[in-house]
């Protein structure tokens, strides 16, 4: 698809920094986010949540709530179809519908504190909350299990009686909390370790962390009198929201329209449905539009954190620093239902390196936490924290510069991954070289209690399905309709690719995100895929329009369309030429509207590598870590809109800083989260971070016409390891547990002293 001429081409639009098309609406407060949307007659829904982390529901009595003045409907799981263990393919991953349904409203058992049990619709949210207090639920509390290794024990309380361990499709013979075991093995691992000059084996733990998007989950549903269901929601993927809702309600997808409103952040956490099906059933019951908005504590307790983990990594190397053997053992929280992030965790743990002999074992473990969800490079950060810490220790032990050690073993084109496949052209080495050449790395770090750390990270970056169409307006502009909800400026990065293809200005494309009836199927905004895959669709839309426009020019000139060439938006033949805009004005007389369309499904991943450098200072008295300087380096293939590429790198880095230093779910002995608010779940504020420098590396991706690789997820992978490595150099203490919060670091520093 890609020709080498694109690689060297000078672009007119790509690489520039136009103002985003939705910008004015977003700085004036006019943009309509999920909670800003309101239909006449809207009533408000609220959810009753479990106070227990693990309990059997003996009975639910909603009669008093139903009689409360102002209440219009009450629902429990009994109002939903009884879903069997049916697997629904949601494009990016699949889901067991019985589990999804039981997560939306508990069936028989509650599996985490905050698990939804019943819902009420009332004239306003306050009345709905009053009614929740009137619902009588009798629970039989059961022993909860929270820590992943505890949940794996033979004597652990079982969350699901029917869950058996699947080993790549082979089922275990007894019920277990371990829902899956993954195993990769390549080469002769034990022999290689025996021959290695240096072997380092370490254990790592990470706490549950939340995606932390500022906009809580929200949905408004209207089950119309004609039986059609429309849902206005804040989602990363309107089509997957539609499919999940339809499957849970056992109605055809065509009976559901999902309208994606502007979305206030997602990071992987707004793919699964929570409120949509509940609002729908409430609406069906009361005949009114029902709007549901979560409170912040509901977001923390009822929606997906990303897995807490236990990881053991063992690496063997020669004296000269050649990695010869690797072994990793990973156990990740799945949360209340199976299907966590262990797969990518296992595939990413050694993804930066060429290790000829390696073994990876991974376990997906259910425990009494909210069902885990994707969070920016899901599963990779936990794994990289472990591997990149051991690499750093190895470099120190061997007396080799940490970048040199990485360069010596770096994955490159042709490297066979531990899970089997071989890398195509990738840019990991280039990020290491850029790090080495950076002003940050070259400048000395002075002062006591300070240290510099470095780490690398990898994420796949996926393709998947995207659709787009565009129509040419008579004034020479183009209206683009796409299906990717815009979380961080992708309307513009997609529109720019159409503009570049057509040879018009970015401002002359009007991009619009359509609902599920307005555009072809498009997978979620996730997996760092929108600028890559929806961008590819926009490119193909551009080619389609260009072909049609050439035909129109040929009609005007009465020549063969094949003789019409187009460069930079000017159509030419035999000395005659016409610009795109002028030609657009003649569509009416040359056959009517021109509409381009494309649907794409690029296969494979585009492989994003990043390397981060961080300087820290550790207060020797309080063990508080200050980030002094930070540089994020990443191969993005091609930066379509560099400002938003930098923004992704900066935002991901700061999320990683939060994960590294302070963010965590704190559970009490009953498995209840102690800190479900922004005060005690400590995401970084502006005062907690410095400016984040970025170095964009561009190694052309041959699988995309403009070389795009995607950018969003990779930047969160390296920070915890980079910061742990910096803390070690600043304080002499190696931290192997996240977050490296002051009490935890202080305890480790104190233990080391004594």
């Amino acid at each position, binding site marked *: 698809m890609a020709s080498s001429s694109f690689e060297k081409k000078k672009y007119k639009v790509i690489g520039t920094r136009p103002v985003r098309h939705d910008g004015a609406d977003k700085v004036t407060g006019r943009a309509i986010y999920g909670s800003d949307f309101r239909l006449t007659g809207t009533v408000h829904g609220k959810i009753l949540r479990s106070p227990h982390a693990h309990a059997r529901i003996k009975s639910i009595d909603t009669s008093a709530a139903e009689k409360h003045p102002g209440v219009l409907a009450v629902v429990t799981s009994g109002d939903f179809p009884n879903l069997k263990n049916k697997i629904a393919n949601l494009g990016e991953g699949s889901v067991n519908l019985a589990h999804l349904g039981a997560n939306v409203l508990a069936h028989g058992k509650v599996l985490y504190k905050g698990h939804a049990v019943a819902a009420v619709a009332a004239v306003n949210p*306050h009345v709905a*909350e*009053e009614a929740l207090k009137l619902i009588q639920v009798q629970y039989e509390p059961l022993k909860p299990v929270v820590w992943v290794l505890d949940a794996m024990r033979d004597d652990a309380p079982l969350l699901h009686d029917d869950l058996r361990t699947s080993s790549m499709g082979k089922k275990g013979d007894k019920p277990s909390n371990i829902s899956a075991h993954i195993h990769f093995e390549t080469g002769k691992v034990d022999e290689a370790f025996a021959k290695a000059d240096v072997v380092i084996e370490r254990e790592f733990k990470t706490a549950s962390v939340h995606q932390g998007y500022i906009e809580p989950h929200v949905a408004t549903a209207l089950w119309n009198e004609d039986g059609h269901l429309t849902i206005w929601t804040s989602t990363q993927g309107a089509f997957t929201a539609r499919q999940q809702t339809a499957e849970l309600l056992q109605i055809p997808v065509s009976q559901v329209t999902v309208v994606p409103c502007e979305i206030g952040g997602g990071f992987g956490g707004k793919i699964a449905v929570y409120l949509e099906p509940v609002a729908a059933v409430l609406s069906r019951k009361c005949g009114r539009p029902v709007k549901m908005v979560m409170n912040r504590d509901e977001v923390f307790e009822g929606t997906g954190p990303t897995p807490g983990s236990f990881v053991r990594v063992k690496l063997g190397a020669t004296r000269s620093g050649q990695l010869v053997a690797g072994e990793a053992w990973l156990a990740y929280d799945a949360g209340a239902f199976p299907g966590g992030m262990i797969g990518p965790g296992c595939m990413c743990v050694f993804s930066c390196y060429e290790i000829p002999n390696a073994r990876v074992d991974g376990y997906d473990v259910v425990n009494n936490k909210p069902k885990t969800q994707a969070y920016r490079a899901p599963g990779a950060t936990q794994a990289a924290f472990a591997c990149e810490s051991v690499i750093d220790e190895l470099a120190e032990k061997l007396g080799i510069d940490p970048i040199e050690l990485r360069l010596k073993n770096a994955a490159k084109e042709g490297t066979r991954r531990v899970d089997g496949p071989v890398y195509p052209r990738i840019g990991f080495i280039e990020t290491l070289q850029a790090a080495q050449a950076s002003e940050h790395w070259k400048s000395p770090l002075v002062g006591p209690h300070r240290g510099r750390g470095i780490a690398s990270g990898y994420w796949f970056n996926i393709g998947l399905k995207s659709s787009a169409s565009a129509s040419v307006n008579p004034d020479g502009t183009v209206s683009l309709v796409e299906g990717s909800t815009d979380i961080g400026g992708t309307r513009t990065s997609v529109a720019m690719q159409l503009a570049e293809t057509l040879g018009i200005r970015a401002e002359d494309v009007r991009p619009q995100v359509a609902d599920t009836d307005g555009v072809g199927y498009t997978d979620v905004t996730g997996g760092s895929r929108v600028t890559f895959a929806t961008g590819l669709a926009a490119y193909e839309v551009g080619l389609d329009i260009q072909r049609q426009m050439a035909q129109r020019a040929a009609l005007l000139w009465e020549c063969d369309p094949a003789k019409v060439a187009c460069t930079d938006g000017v159509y030419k033949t035999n000395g005659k030429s016409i610009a795109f805009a002028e030609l657009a004005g003649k569509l009416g007389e040359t056959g009517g509207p021109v509409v381009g369309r494309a649907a794409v499904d690029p296969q494979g991943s585009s492989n994003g590598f990043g390397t981060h450098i961080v300087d820290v200072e550790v207060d020797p*008295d*309080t063990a*508080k870590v200050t980030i002094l300087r930070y540089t994020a380096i990443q191969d993005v293939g091609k930066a379509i809109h560099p400002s938003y590429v930098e923004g992704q790198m900066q935002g991901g880095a700061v999320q990683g800083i939060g994960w590294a*230093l*302070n963010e965590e779910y*704190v559970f009490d002995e009953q498995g209840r989260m*102690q*800190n479900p608010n*922004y*005060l*005690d779940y*400590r995401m*970084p*504020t502006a*005062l*907690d971070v410095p400016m984040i420098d970025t170095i964009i590396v561009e190694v052309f991706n041959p699988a995309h016409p403009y070389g795009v690789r995607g950018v969003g997820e990779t930047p969160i992978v390296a920070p915890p390891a980079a910061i742990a490595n910096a803390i070690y150099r600043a304080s002499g203490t190696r931290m192997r547990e996240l977050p490296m*919060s*002051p*009490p935890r670091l*202080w*305890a480790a520093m104190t233990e080391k002293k004594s």
Partner: protein
Amino acid sequence: MKDFEFQTATTVDEAVSLLAARGQRARVLTGGTDLIVQLREGQREADLVVDIKKIPELMELTYSAGAGLKLGAAVPCYRIYGDSQIEAAYPALADAARIIGGWQIQSRASIGGNLCNSSPAADSIPTLIAYDVTCHLAGPQGRRTVRAAEFCTGPGKNVLDRGEILTMLEFPAPKKHASAAYLRFIPRNEMDIAVVGAASWVQLNAAGDTIEKARVALAAVAPTPLSPTSVGEWLAGKPAMPQTFAKAGELASQAARPIGDKRGTVEYRKHLAGVLTKRTLAIAVDRARGVATSAH
């Protein structure tokens, strides 16, 4: 949240009679930054909320070098650090006022409200104790005063009787060669609850080399803000130098009797009480010597 009746009082007597009539079912609203959250989250319930911000006496902020500072109970924090005279005279008060929540919180929250909420971790209370502030109360039985150190009686509990409100905080006039500082430890740099807080007030001799008198007060190391008199007594007569501050820190650490919770372990909190006592003493001494020192 449950609905409630709302009244705006314009005189102290009106507020007192409204509150006295309803007892525990009535709540005072000043900045609302604690109360509204507590009502919304069901930690407290109220049938009546009385806004006392429209009572002129409670919004009074007057300072003179001779008479000291009169801080009305409902004066929002931003007015304190926004007044350079007050900031210069009571730097530890400004230290605390500047870090109670973010700016949006400081636009509303008052030091009086922070005191009446009586959280063991409250940022302003150690400062009030260190400055030996007098709290003026008004109730159905008339007016009375209480020293800041005696105001809190337990987590969320204080000496206020039914119908009684705090009207004003009276700060003694600043003395020559004396100053104070407040520091708290939090994992982030802002928007956080103190893991431990410490305020130190020192009176130096004219030469500025000896501590004549000192008071240290700690937050989040006991059920109420703690004022270990042992530390202050030990400091009297000691040379104003780092070794002294470090030793005082050790004493503060010993006096602290914290619990372990989501914000910190017992050991860590005791340790921090020492670190912050040491650091606030150093800043207070610098300030008493006339060296401008920022606590942030």
